[in-house]
Structures are given as C-alpha cells and as structure tokens.
C-alpha cells in the first residue's frame, strides 16, 4: 500500500511506500521538486516542512534540524517515511557556497 505525497506550490504528486523515504520515492520516479543530496540525513539539502499527514522518521543530523525544526515538523525528506497521505513544503536548496564568503550568502 502506498501513500500520496503532494509537494505544495509545485503541483507534484507521487506515490510513496511506507518503507520508502519521501526523497527516495520522488527520486526513483525521476521526478523533481525536492533537492537531492546525500540521502542519509547528513547534508540537509532536502529539508521540507510536513504540512499535513502522519509519518515516521529515522535519525537525521542535528546540524540541520534544530529542536524548533522538530517541533514545527521541518525535517529532512530522506529520513521521513509516510504512514498516511502527506503534504510537504520545500525549504532546503542546493546553495553554491564554494568560494562564497559567508557575508554574501
């Protein structure tokens, strides 16, 4: 049984199995909408806010997910597994920071 994941603002909807992360479900279908990085909860680029639905999670790097993020359901899509239909808003992005001074970001 799969659940339907909707990415707000983009109109992308896809089926995701409960044992599959939101990111891998999207990526496997060749769809875009959430930035893809390490896929292991370490780099933070796939951050989303879960705006509706139930889910489970696995450990993700606290460099990218604060206590406040956890409370607000702002999580890394590669570590979130759907247990109902879900809607998400994309927060993370791939920022080109090589050679970029901190002040310019």
């Amino acid at each position, binding site marked *: 049984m799969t659940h339907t994941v909707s990415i707000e603002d983009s109109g992308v909807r896809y089926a995701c199995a409960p044992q599959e992360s939101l990111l891998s479900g999207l990526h496997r279908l060749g769809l875009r909408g959430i930035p*893809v*990085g*390490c*896929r*292991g*909860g*370490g*780099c933070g*680029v796939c951050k989303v806010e879960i705006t509706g639905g139930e889910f489970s999670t*696995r*450990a*993700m*790097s*606290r*460099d990218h997910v604060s206590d406040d993020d956890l409370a607000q359901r702002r999580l890394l899509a590669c570590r979130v597994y759907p247990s109902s239909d879900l809607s998400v808003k994309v927060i993370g992005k*791939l*920022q*080109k*920071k*090589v*050679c*970029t*001074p*901190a002040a310019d*970001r």
Partner: protein
Amino acid sequence: MALTGVLRPGHAQVRVLDLEESVRFYRDVLGLVETGRDAQGRVYFKCWDERDHNSYVIREADRAGIDFFGFRVLDQATLDRLDADLKAYGLATERIPAGEMLGTGERVRFTLPSGHVIELYADKHKVGNGIPLVNPAPWSKARDHGIAPVRLDHALLYGPNVAEVHKIFTEVLGFYLVERVLTPDGQGNAAIWLSCGQKVHDIAFAEYPEPGKLHHCSFLMESWDQVLRAGDIMSMNQVAVDIGPTRHGVTRGCTIYAWDPSGNRFETFFGGHLPYPDYETLTWTFDNFGQGLDYPQRKLHETFLTVVS
C-alpha cells in the same frame, strides 16, 4: 632515507547517526576490516592491505561529519620537532596520550584556520595485513569481501581560510602543492591538492564559508576494473552514489563518489599521476573546474560544490 617528516594519512574519525547500520556498511559493503571497539563506543577499521591497527574510526553522534584527520610521521623525534614547529608558527597544539585511541601512540593535535582538527602521531600497533612478511602472497581473501579498498588514501575538506591552511602544510609540515583550482577572479585558490610524498595528493581543501566540513574520505582501489566493481557493489546494496564512475581531470584519478548511510561522502579512487616535490604546480581556472572534476563529461556537478557533512 628520502621520505621523512610526515609519511602518510593515518586515520580519520567520522561521526555516524546509527552505529550498527554504519558498521554493517563499512564492514560488509565497503569491505573494511573491523579491528576493535573501545569504551567510548568507537568502532575501528582498517583496509585489508594496511598494516597498522586502524585507519578509519566511526562513532555515533547526533550529526554527521569528521572529528579529525591524522597523519603518521617518521618517528618520535619528528613528532616532537613538528609539534615545536607548529607552536613556533603560532598554532596551539595539545598532546593526546598514547592509548586514547586503540593501538595508537601519543598524538599531537591542532586546529586549522579552516576549522578542521588535524593530528600527527609516530606510533601505531602493527597488526599486519594477514599476509606473512616472509614469502608474502600478493593478496589475501580479505581482498574479495565487499568493495575492499587497499588503503585510506586522502581526504578533501571544506572550510574557510584555505590560503592560511596552504601555508601551514607547505611551510611547517613539508607538503607541496600538486594541483589547484583558481578562484573565479583568478587571484586566489578555490581548492588545493597537497602531497607529502609521491602520491598525487594526501589531503585537499576547498574554500567554503562553514568551518570544519567533510567533503569526502577517499579509499584506494587497485585498478579501474576494481572501481567499476565497487560501483556494482554500491548498486547491489542501494548505496547513494553521487558522481561516477568517471575520471577526474585534477589528479587524473578514476573515481566514484558516494555516501555512507549518514551522508558522509566517500570515494573509491584509483590512479593519478606521480608528482615529485620539484614539479611545477598544475593550475585549473575556475571556468574549467568541470573538467577538473569530471573530465569525460566536463560537468561541474552541483552536489560537488553544495553537499558536505
């Protein structure tokens, strides 16, 4: 003896989010040899052909990334001299007592202006590679377990103040600059590849605003065929692959970049040219960084510049 001072990369300690999942990955997929666990819960590994007790250590933490990267130096006198030289240069050092890491002698630890912790040590227990020292066979069956690289080869670290880091490695630690990528304005180095021997690099750095970041730890394969075999094993085990198999323009090395289960990138690497300290540095302009990274595709993969742990 021609090779003195800093001899080689000796160990990396990396943070993982789930220890046992990571142990299974590093032992059974990457094919490292587990050599011990300590009271802090750290798990120690070496590559099959390495002779010292450990080269890659993982610990469970709530964030991914690298704790420190260590280099083996020739002997205790060299360790003492380099400690004094680092202090004279203006860097604070501390001594970590022998035995704090399993099988490992006293370490001299300091922090680079890029935010990375670097260690030097002169002694590590020689556990051997399972092959006798007299009439040795060319390999053991450990070579066929998982990806099975032969050694920890180098690391690429991302952080600020690369120009300062370059000076410390070349003026204090005896490294030389093998290759570099210029900044977009051509006035500085965006990335540097440094060697302490005749390897194409022993450590590399790229300019990045956040300190102390890990781009990848690299493991040496014996052939291009072994790199392709590594790619097969990654896919068989659903490992998240980043780039490759392909060949770098920088170093000429063959490569796959992929991520461990916690999002720490690693590389399976083969080849590269063999520089000498008198060779001129090879320079890449920033607009040719794509060839430097992926020579056949000439592609500056976005994740190379953006995804670190």
